[in-house]
C-alpha cells in the first residue's frame, strides 16, 4: 500500500449526496490527477458526517481541517492553495454565525465541540466499504474477546453493568432482554436488528448504517454469542438503498474474513446474517409486527406475552435490538460496562444520538452524553433558531412523543426526566419549531400519520385515531366547538389504555402534550376562529394589513398567480378571486403583514 500524506474524508451521506458531493468527488479526483497528486492524496467517501446543514463537507486528515459548502468551481483554487502550497482556503471554512469567527479545525466548531462520539465513533473517519479500516479502529476486537475469552453469562453481565437501554424508543434494558432470551429453552434462536427507522424526523440509524455498518454486524455477533443464536436478520427500510448496499458489502467482507459464517475466529461458534428489506409499513417497527413481516405476512402486532424472548420469529426465542443500541455493544465488551456507565445520569447511561432538524441553524446528527440539557443541544450545538424567530417547542420522539416548551428546556436528557414533561426519548428525533408553527396543525399532522399507519387490527387504534383526526381537522377548519377539546382528552385516554401495541398506546401523545402546553392555541382556533401562527388556511383572511405593510413588494413578486397588485410606495392588495391560497406571500412577508 502506498503511503499517502493526506486523506480527504469526503462525506457521501444522503444529505451531502443531494448537494452533489458525487460530482464534486469526480471533479476533485480529475484535478488531483492533473496536478500529479494522486499518489500523495487520497479521497475517501465516508458515511454521513452529521453536519448536514453545511454540506457537502470534507475533512482533511491528518490536519483536521474542515471544509464546507463545497462547489465544483472551488476545486482548482482549493487544490492549488491547500494541496500544493499548504495554505488553508479561508472562504471554504466554517464561520461561526454569532462571532463571525472562522474556525478551521473540525473539533473546535461548536457543533462538534459539545458532542461525544461513541455510537457514531467511526462516522466520517473510515471508508465504510473497507473492512480493514474498521479493524484498524479496533473493529471486531470486542467480538474476538466475547468469542474467545468470555462465557455468555459474562457478556450479559457486562452489558447489564453498562446500563445500556434500548435506543429504539422504549428504553428497555438491553442486558435484561438478552438474559431472558438466553434462558429460554430451544436450540434455534434469532438475533434481529431493527433498522426499520420510521419515525418522521429521525435519521440516525440510516447514518450509522451508512457510515459504520460493521459496528452493527459486530454487535449482532456478540448478541448471538450471548444468547447462543446461529442466525440473524437485519430488517432494513427499503427507502434506504445506500444503507442496504453498504450492509451487503460489509456482510460479504466479514464472511471472507471468517468473521461471519462457520467456526468464527476458531471458537467453534457459527453465525450468519441476512438482510431483509421492509416494504413500507411504520407499524413494522413494533417488534412482533416486524417478526410477522419477516415471515412474509401482513406486519400486524400480536398481544404480548408471550414476549419475543420466549416466542418470536417463527415462534423461536428472539431478541430484537435497534441499530444505535447495537453500535454501542462492541465498545462495551472491549472497554467494559463500567466505562460505559461512567457517563450519564442515575437511570440513563452513555450517550444518545439525536437528529436535530426543523427550525434550527445547525441541522444534523448530534450525539450527546445523557444528562446534557435540551438547551445545550438546541442552542450551543444547534446554534438556536434562525431568522431571529422565537423558539416555541421541540418535538421529541416523533408520533409517539410530545412537545417540550421553553420553560422545560433545562431538563437533562434522561428517559425518566423527559417522560415527566410529557414527551419521550423515543428514537431521537428532535424537531425544533419556531413561533410560526401551529401546534394544533402539528397535532393534526401526527394524528394523520398514526391514523394512516394504524394496521387496523385493534378497534381503539383503528377507530379512535380516526375520530381524533376528524376532531382536529374540524378545529383546523374553524368548525370546532368547545366540547371537542374535552372529547379529545377523553378519547385519548381510552386509546392509550386499550390499544394493542405501542403505536396505538402512544399515538394520542402529540395531542395530549400540545393540549397540556398550548391549550390557548386550541382555544383561539375554537372560540375566536383564529390561527395565531397563521398556518391553518381555512382560518386566514388573505388580506394585507395596511398598518403593518412596508410596501416592499416581496409578496407581489412571489405570487405565482398574479393575484397581488402593488406599486412602489403603495400597500399591496390581494385579489381573493384570483388567490389560490398557496401561502407563498405569507412565507415571503418578513413583516407579518398578511392575515
Amino acid at each position: 500500500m502506498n503511503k499517502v500524506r493526506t486523506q480527504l474524508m469526503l462525506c457521501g451521506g444522503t444529505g451531502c449526496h443531494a448537494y452533489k458531493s458525487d460530482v464534486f468527488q469526480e471533479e476533485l479526483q480529475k484535478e488531483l490527477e492533473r496536478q500529479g497528486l494522486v499518489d500523495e492524496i487520497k479521497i475517501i467517501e465516508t458515511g454521513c458526517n452529521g453536519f448536514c446543514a453545511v454540506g457537502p463537507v470534507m475533512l482533511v486528515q491528518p490536519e483536521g481541517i474542515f471544509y464546507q459548502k463545497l462547489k465544483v468551481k472551488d476545486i482548482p483554487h482549493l487544490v492549488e492553495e491547500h494541496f500544493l502550497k499548504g495554505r488553508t482556503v479561508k472562504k471554504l471554512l466554517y464561520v461561526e454565525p454569532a462571532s463571525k469567527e472562522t474556525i478551521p479545525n473540525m473539533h473546535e466548531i461548536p457543533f462538534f465541540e459539545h458532542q461525544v462520539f461513541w455510537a457514531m465513533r467511526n462516522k466520517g473517519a473510515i471508508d465504510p466499504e473497507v473492512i480493514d479500516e474498521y479493524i484498524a479502529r479496533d473493529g471486531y476486537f470486542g467480538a474476538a474477546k466475547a468469542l474467545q475469552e468470555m462465557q455468555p453469562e459474562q457478556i450479559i453481565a457486562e452489558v447489564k453493568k453498562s446500563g445500556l437501554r434500548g435506543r429504539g424508543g422504549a428504553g428497555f434494558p438491553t442486558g435484561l432482554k438478552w438474559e431472558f432470551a438466553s434462558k429460554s429453552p430451544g436450540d434455534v434462536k434469532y438475533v434481529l436488528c431493527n433498522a426499520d427507522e420510521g419515525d418522521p424526523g429521525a435519521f440516525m440509524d440510516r447514518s450509522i448504517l451508512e457510515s459504520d455498518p460493521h459496528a452493527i454486524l459486530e454487535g449482532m455477533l456478540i448478541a448471538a454469542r450471548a444468547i447462543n443464536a446461529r442466525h440473524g436478520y437485519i430488517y432494513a427500510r427499503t427507502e434506504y438503498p445506500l444503507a442496504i448496499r453498504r450492509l451487503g458489502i460489509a456482510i460479504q467482507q466479514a464472511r471472507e474474513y471468517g468473521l461471519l459464517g462457520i467456526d468464527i475466529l476458531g471458537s467453534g461458534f457459527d453465525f450468519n446474517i441476512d438482510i431483509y428489506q421492509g416494504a413500507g409499513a411504520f407499524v413494522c417497527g413494533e417488534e412482533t409486527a416486524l417478526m410477522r413481516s419477516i415471515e412474509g405476512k401482513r406486519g400486524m402486532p400480536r398481544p404480548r406475552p408471550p414476549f419475543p424472548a420466549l416466542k418470536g420469529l417463527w415462534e423461536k426465542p428472539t431478541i430484537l435490538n435497534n441499530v444505535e443500541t447495537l453500535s454501542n455493544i462492541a465498545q462495551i465488551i472491549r472497554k467494559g460496562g463500567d466505562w460505559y456507565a461512567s457517563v450519564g445520569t442515575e437511570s440513563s447511561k452513555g450517550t444518545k444520538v439525536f437528529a436535530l432538524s426543523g427550525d434550527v441553524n445547525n441541522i444534523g446528527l448530534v450525539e450527546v452524553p445523557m444528562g446534557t440539557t435540551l438547551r445545550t443541544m438546541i442552542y450551543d450545538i444547534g446554534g438556536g433558531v434562525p431568522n431571529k424567530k422565537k423558539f416555541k417547542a421541540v418535538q421529541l420522539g416523533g408520533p409517539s412523543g410530545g412537545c417540550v416548551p421553553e420553560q422545560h428546556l433545562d431538563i437533562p436528557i434522561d428517559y425518566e426526566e423527559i417522560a415527566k414533561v410529557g414527551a419521550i426519548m423515543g428514537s431521537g428525533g428532535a424537531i425544533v419549531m419556531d413561533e410560526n408553527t401551529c401546534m394544533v396543525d402539528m397535532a393534526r399532522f401526527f394524528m394523520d400519520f398514526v391514523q394512516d399507519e394504524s394496521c387496523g387490527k385493534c378497534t381503539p387504534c383503528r377507530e379512535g385515531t380516526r375520530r381524533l383526526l376528524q376532531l382536529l381537522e374540524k378545529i383546523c377548519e374553524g368548525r370546532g366547538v368547545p366540547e371537542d377539546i374535552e372529547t379529545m382528552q377523553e378519547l385519548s385516554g381510552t386509546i392509550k389504555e386499550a390499544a394493542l401495541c405501542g403505536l396505538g398506546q402512544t399515538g394520542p401523545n402529540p395531542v395530549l402534550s400540545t393540549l397540556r402546553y398550548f391549550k390557548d392555541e386550541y382555544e383561539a382556533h375554537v372560540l375566536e376562529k383564529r390561527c395565531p401562527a397563521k398556518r391553518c388556511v381555512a382560518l386566514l383572511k388573505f388580506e394585507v394589513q395596511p398598518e403593518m405593510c412596508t410596501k416592499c413588494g416581496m409578496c407581489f413578486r412571489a405570487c405565482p398567480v398574479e393575484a397581488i397588485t402593488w406599486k412602489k410606495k403603495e400597500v399591496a392588495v390581494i385579489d381573493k378571486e384570483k388567490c389560490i391560497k398557496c401561502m407563498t406571500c405569507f412565507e415571503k412577508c418578513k413583516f407579518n403583514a398578511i392575515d
Partner: protein
Amino acid sequence: MVPDIRPEHSDISDEMWPKIDDIITANCDIPGSIIGVLRECQDVVGWLPVELIDYISDGLNLPRSEVFGVASFYSLFSMTPKGRHQIKACMGTACYVKGIKEVISRIGNEYQLKEGCTTEDRRFTLDAVRCLGACGLAPVVVVDQDTYGDVKADKVIEVLEKYE
C-alpha cells in the same frame, strides 16, 4: 412452480414474463419470500396488476387472498399504474414544519394532480411519502432517483419542468 398459462396484460410485455418466472422459480421454496417476490416483480413491471398478483400466488402456491393481503398492506406496492416520473414529497416532520404542504399544493395546482394519483398523460405520479431521512435538507422532494433539498413551493415547478 411457474403456472402454465400467462394472463394477458397490456403493461406486461413479452420480455417481462421470463424475468417474472425467474423470480418465482428462485423463491418458491423459501418461506416468507413473498414480500421480496412482489418487490422484484413490481420493479420489472412498474406496478402490480391483479392478474400478476394471481399469477404470483399460483406460482408460489399461496392463497390469492394472502398475497393480495400482503400487497395491499405495504405502501411500497402499487396496484394502480405509475407515471413516467414519480414525484415523492417527503411528509416527515421536518419537511412538514418547513412547508411541504405548500409544495404539494403547488404541484397539485400546476398539473391538476392529487396525492397518490397520476396525471392523465402519465407524465407524473405524485406521492406523499414517509420521512426519507434527509431531514437536514427539508423540505425534500425526490423525482425518480434524484433528491432535491430545500425545495420551497416557488422553486418546485422549475425542478419538475426538467422531467418530460
